[in-house]
């Protein structure tokens, strides 16, 4: 992260002010300045930042803070509150029409990810709500756009309605709805061509499609990496079409995603979904509170905690802790634990969610590569049960066999064995120090 330094500075400022028993106007100004910089570097629109800072300052020097017992903490809370409020509440529902089919129109700039998102949305509707969606190819301009939607449809086994590139998008949309009625499909997702918000001719075409299909939802698809221009794009599309919601794409990148805040501020429309990967099941509900802390670079602690809670079985964790203490931790436990961590998602994502992780020595440059974990898994899986439970039996010929079986080298097997031993030692030290403590001792071995 190029601007990791900025986030760290902000955290430092927050830390300093949190500890203060008395907060004066100067403290607030310093903090406001850092927050302003962080928001601007995160691509939040200038205008939006200005209003935001003004509100925070007003509240931070107001009575609610000064009279509280912990004014320092209160100031940070004001920032958080205001951000969360600006981001709006959680809303990931999709409208249902009184009479089938429900029509959803996807609009946005070129390259925002409309076609992929259309596919993901269809997949989500089918999987989570048991719906029968129809994808409609209305992008008649970009070469092979129809082809792309067809391929997506084929991968998902979801029907795609198209009339080639010669047809008019308005006619295609109209016929698609009739087709959906005939086939008893209950959702129609219209994938329109990407266009500039200032291209009057093409924007008028969208209005026409809207008039003829009277969609229940119009989703504006926006690239999370969009900069200051996000307000212009959102404002224009919203004015012309009165969109009903926003889908933020490419949020699996390392952008702070300040565009989310800008769009909310100028349109007051909810961000409903977030694209989190290239695979067609990687469309998630949007969590405004988490986005708020991501924009500030504060780490997504909440997400991490929630993920860990759902994925790691409490009982298993306690058993594991017991094993760590008694040194009976084996490769089998290791494997199991790795599986649990992997269920939480890609390692990098997990790391990104821990505040300050970028500051930790050694972790900063560590490439947390999922394929390395796969390799470790392969090595352990190539061991016999005896070897897993008692690594001391390992000899040269066993190592050769394991290396062969896992497609690695003896050196890699050796490295793992060494790491495992060191880890066990570390565990002993860790748990030996505070044997009575419950729950808190759970650590991931390769962190």
């Amino acid at each position: 992260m190029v601007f990791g330094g900025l986030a760290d500075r902000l955290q430092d400022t927050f830390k300093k002010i949190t500890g203060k028993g008395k907060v004066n106007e100067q403290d607030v100004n310093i903090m406001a300045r850092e927050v302003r910089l962080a928001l601007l570097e995160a691509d939040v629109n200038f205008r939006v930042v200005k209003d935001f800072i003004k509100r925070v300052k007003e509240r931070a020097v107001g009575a609610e803070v000064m009279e509280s017992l912990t004014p320092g903490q209160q100031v940070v809370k004001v920032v958080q509150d205001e951000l969360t409020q600006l981001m709006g509440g959680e809303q990931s529902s999709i409208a249902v029409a009184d009479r089938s089919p429900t029509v959803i129109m996807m609009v946005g700039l070129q390259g925002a990810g409309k076609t992929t998102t259309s596919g993901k949305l269809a997949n989500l509707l089918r999987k989570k709500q048991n719906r029968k969606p129809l994808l409609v190819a209305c992008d008649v301009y970009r070469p092979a756009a129809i082809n792309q939607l067809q391929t997506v449809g084929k991968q998902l086994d979801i029907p795609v309605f198209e009339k080639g590139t010669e047809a008019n998008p308005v006619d295609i949309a109209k016929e698609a709805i009739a087709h959906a009625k005939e086939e008893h499909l209950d959702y129609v997702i219209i994938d329109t061509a990407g266009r500039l918000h200032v291209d009057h001719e093409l924007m008028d075409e969208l209005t026409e499609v809207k008039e003829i299909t009277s969609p229940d939802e119009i989703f504006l698809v926006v690239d999370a990496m969009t900069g200051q221009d996000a307000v212009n794009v959102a404002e224009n599309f919203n004015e012309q079409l009165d969109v009903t919601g926003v889908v933020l794409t490419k949020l699996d990148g390392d952008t702070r995603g300040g565009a989310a805040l800008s769009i909310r501020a100028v349109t007051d429309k909810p961000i409903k979904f977030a694209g989190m990967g290239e695979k067609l099941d990687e469309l998630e509900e949007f969590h405004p509170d988490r986005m708020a802390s991501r924009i500030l670079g504060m780490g997504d602690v909440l997400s991490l905690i929630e993920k860990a809670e759902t994925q790691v079985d409490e009982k298993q964790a306690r058993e594991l802790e017991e094993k760590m203490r008694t040194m009976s931790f084996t490769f089998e436990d290791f494997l199991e634990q790795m599986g649990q961590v992997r269920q939480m998602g890609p390692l990098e994502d997990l790391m990104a969610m821990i505040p300050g992780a970028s500051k930790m020595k050694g972790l900063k440059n560590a490439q947390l590569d999922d394929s390395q974990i796969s390799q470790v898994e392969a090595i352990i899986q190539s061991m016999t049960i005896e070897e897993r439970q008692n690594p001391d039996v390992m000899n040269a010929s066993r190592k050769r066999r394991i290396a062969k079986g896992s497609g690695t080298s003896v050196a890699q097997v050796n490295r793992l064995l060494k790491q495992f031993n060191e880890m066990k030692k570390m565990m002993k030290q860790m748990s030996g120090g505070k044997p009575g403590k419950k729950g808190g001792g759970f650590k991931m071995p390769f962190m």
Partner: protein
Amino acid sequence: MNFIQKLKRRFTQDESNEVSDTYKKGMEKTRNSFSGRINDLIARYRKVDEDFFEELEEVLITADVGVSTVMDFIDELKMEVKRQNIKDTKDTKEVISETLVSIYQSGDDESLSEINMQDDGELTVILVVGVNGVGKTTSIGKLAHSYKQEGKKVVLAAGDTFRAGAIEQLEEWGKRAEVDVVKQSEGSDPAAVIFDAIRAAKSRKADILICDTAGRLQNKVNLMNELGKVNRIIEREIPGAPHEVLLVLDATTGQNALSQAKTFSDVTNVSGIVLTKLDGTAKGGIVLAIRKELAIPVKYVGLGEKAEDLQPFEPDAFVYGLFAGMMDEEE
């Protein structure tokens, strides 16, 4: 003659007229908001003072130039204003545009935005990289068109084997530009496609091979490693190649573009930027920060949907595009 007049003369009188017209037209939307705001600013503030600088800072930040670059710029501008003893805001126009161009050109030679073409009879390999949805395939189509117009023999390599429809999209561009496309099926190894394409380009005695790659977010380690492999295959097959690695950036992208430029440079030797979608209201100011921090020059800009709307980058013309409205008013 002041700087703006010089620019104006250059772009309205000499043979580069056509170029400046494309810029002027393509950047119309960009300019309207940008120079309009500067003009407005100058009209509202008669005296050069702190408030004036603060608002100027705002205008630049909204052009996505980035906070730290803007602050450096403002510092430099303040010094210059002091040195020249400028009191009236009207007189700052020239210093503003001059300083902006100087950030970009910072001591480098004029051939900055030229493509590193090999001698006749030798193959020039251009690798095109970038995140998803920035317009890599479209830019390649347009590049192929323009090189073909110049009489070069061009081969395209369909290295995006991941995204649905990407190969067909490149083929369509190949058909339009009447150039060959080397491809394999979707899902095949991109390095193998590039390998084939190099062999094909050599045996067909092509002048230029342009390699498409799948869009990838720069924080995906595996995908970046895959790109590194593609790059190594090219290096191995032709010493000194790829002769150009073009990073395609979407002008609407904000500060993340800097991270993109940095990370893609770690895996490949990014030699230039293609700034696309400049025909919207976005200003692509981040290229200034990229130029300043990483010294990567912009080589092409996308100013429209048509094949000929991809233009070689000219820093002066870019600034002219931003300020054209201001210049017209000077008359």
